């Protein structure tokens, strides 16, 4: 199937692979377009028309789009519903190149990392949180990207998870990062608001090793050594709460 695709769609698939678990807003001229499953999701969630590309060739590609100058509110709507949106721009002047224009993802907008005022309530902070553990020690960190507020804590012993859980509830993060191994604990433990469906596991593009050792796509791009600790980060799930 892949060999029949146009260069542009091949480029699209490459970018999609680099950013799993997101809706890819693909810049095409004055529009951002969503393709394939993203288009179906986008059309449903944003109530915009679903069309198709290459209808004549028989392998129609579902597609829907929004104009670039009004995209911000559409993106905000999706993020508020718990989606992660990868924004892909044309990084060279389309009129100056005759072949496929270069494209790059310039930002991924996620529920826990909003800086667009449309996603922020002035009287409430928005936290991104991460949890990890080793042995009987549980650590947690909270970041409000809009202001730079950044705190971390950890607890050890039998009550460790209980105490950290109270903190998680207190900060009410809009997005929580945690390794797969903690998934059962987190799903059972976090009460209060219902959660949206957990987004797909983020795997490195080249990953072959078993899930617990696979790095996030973020890690795969830079050597693990840059992380302060020696222990590599295990796979992270992105769970969106509220």
């Amino acid at each position, binding site marked *: 199937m892949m060999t029949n695709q146009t260069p542009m769609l091949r480029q699209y698939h490459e970018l999609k692979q680099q950013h799993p678990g997101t809706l890819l807003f693909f810049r095409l001229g004055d529009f951002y377009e969503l393709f394939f499953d993203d288009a179906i999701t986008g059309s449903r969630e944003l109530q915009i028309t679903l069309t198709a590309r290459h209808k004549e060739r028989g392998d129609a590609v579902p597609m829907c789009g929004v104009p670039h100058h009004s995209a911000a509110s559409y993106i905000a709507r999706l993020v508020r519903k718990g989606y*992660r949106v990868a924004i892909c721009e044309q990084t060279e002047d389309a009129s100056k190149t005759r072949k496929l224009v270069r494209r790059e*993802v*310039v*930002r*991924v*907008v*996620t529920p826990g*990392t909003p*800086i667009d005022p449309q996603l*922020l309530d*002035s*009287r*409430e*902070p928005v936290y*991104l*949180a*991460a*949890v*990890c*553990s*080793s042995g009987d*020690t*549980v*650590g*947690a*960190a909270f*970041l409000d*990207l*809009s*202001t*730079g*507020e*950044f*705190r*971390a*804590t*950890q*607890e050890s012993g039998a*009550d460790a998870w*209980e*105490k*950290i*859980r*109270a*903190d998680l*509830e*207190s900060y009410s993060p809009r997005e929580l*990062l945690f390794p797969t191994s903690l998934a059962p604990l987190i799903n059972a433990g976090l*009460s*209060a608001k*219902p959660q949206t469906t957990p987004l797909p596991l983020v795997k490195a593009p080249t990953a072959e090793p078993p899930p617990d050792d696979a790095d996030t796509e*973020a*890690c795969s791009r830079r050597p693990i050594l*840059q*992380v*302060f*600790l020696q*222990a590599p*980060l295990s796979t*992270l799930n992105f769970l969106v709460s509220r």
Partner: protein
Amino acid sequence: MLLNHFGARSLEGYGIERKDEAVRAAGVCLRYAQETQRAAASHITDLAYFEPADHLVLDNVTVRNLELVESLAGAASGRTLLSVIDETTTSMGARLLRSWLLRPCVKQGEVEARLAAVQDLYSSQITRDKLRSLLKEVSDLERLIGRISFGSASPRDMNAILRSLYQVPAVREVISTCPASLLQILSETADEVPEVCALLVKAISDDPPAKISEGDTIRAGYSSELDELRSISRNAKQIIATLEATERTRSGINNLRIKFNNVFGYFIEVSKGNAARVPAEYERRQTLTNAERFTTPELRDWEKKVLGAEERIIQLEAELFNDVCRQVAAATKRIQATARAFANLDALASLAETAVRRRFVKPVMHDGDEVEIVQGRHPMIEVFSEDPFVPNSVYLNNSTDRLLVITGPNMGGKSTVLRQTAIICILAQMGSFVPAEKARLPLLDRVWTRVGASDDLTRGRSTFMVEMTETAAILHSSTPRSLVLLDEIGRGTATFDGLSIAWAVAEYLHDSPEHAAKTLFATHYHELTELAERLPGAQNYQITAAGSNV
């Protein structure tokens, strides 16, 4: 990675050196933030390590049931504790107040410091009013700095930063009359960053647009290149008139006009009749029914200059603006310090203003175990209910009065007494005055709540299961410094079972030396009043209807 980001050699300064899991979690957050934003997020200048035990722990059940930040009646109703005490004038202050409420202090020194500051602002209306009116001129510096770091700040944002920093000297002066040490410290840490102010005054015009592309952002006199370009553009009209006059004279055609459209740019237009009399060097561009349009090399030259100038103006303004942003960003830490100072002052002023408006009193905090509230009131019901509120007094300690069994008719106010007791303790520990005639309070480590019958059906658990699970957590982890509110336990099941469970829970909490928290137990089971006779630490309170209180 954290070391790289903060440019530090060790994490010792952040108090986090041997806290591996905390560091790991922090690293994950930071990496994710940077990856998704494709930016260094340099406004994240600090990592604060905290222990869960550093504050009064309020879990979700408690926060929800006491309606601290969200009402049980639904998000829109706004009848929350936060809404009663929030008199802040800045968003930063509002957010800080909210975090004080959700994570109150647990150390006596901190609480006393805030109370002293609130006291100063409470006693002087002039100081308080002046401070609050100055703070009204302050914008959300915290988020503005964030926007600068991401390159999404607008010209108006710059002005907002300038206006905010300008308030520092005046704020300092207002606070100078207040003895409280916390206020003095805040006054000292507020930094007006004069270099940034000077730069912004010089560079940004008085009334800048919302978007940099709209022009008129950079003040005249800041860049000579920009000034020159602007004068060309501004003088365009003047130059047209002059050129027009010149051409009219030259050609002798009186109705010659110089016009502009998006297709041809600038052109000379004469009526059909005059077309033959135009000078030789006129080049025909377009023929219309009644007119002919021409251009000349001179006109083309001049056009290039003008249009080029306008394009270049926009480009140059953007370059200059970005440079200004960069310079402001270099002072991020100092501006953040000022932002924090303003936020704290705003939150303290809010508490003082509330205390005055709602007739709150200053609580006395002590390191013993007694809770003594005289004529306490429920702050939200008092404000939002139409009926006059009946105050109630409560006394608890860890010996003779550690379990209060509260009985009485339904809707008689049992739950209210429970809730207001907890709310008063929480208010005190966040540094606020409290709704009572008098209050002497200990420093609690946690407030536990089991209130009402709730069905957690979304997660497939019945009321009974929910109650039991939550109650079990309390029995397992409470301490003598905790406060436990039990409201109608055992309601979700058959009467006799419910009664037995209620009795067992109360007894356990009373008897266990490790977990014997101060407990308020509201129940419709009149049988439980027997507990007061059997258990040395239990007391009966009875809520009676209208008029008389116990």
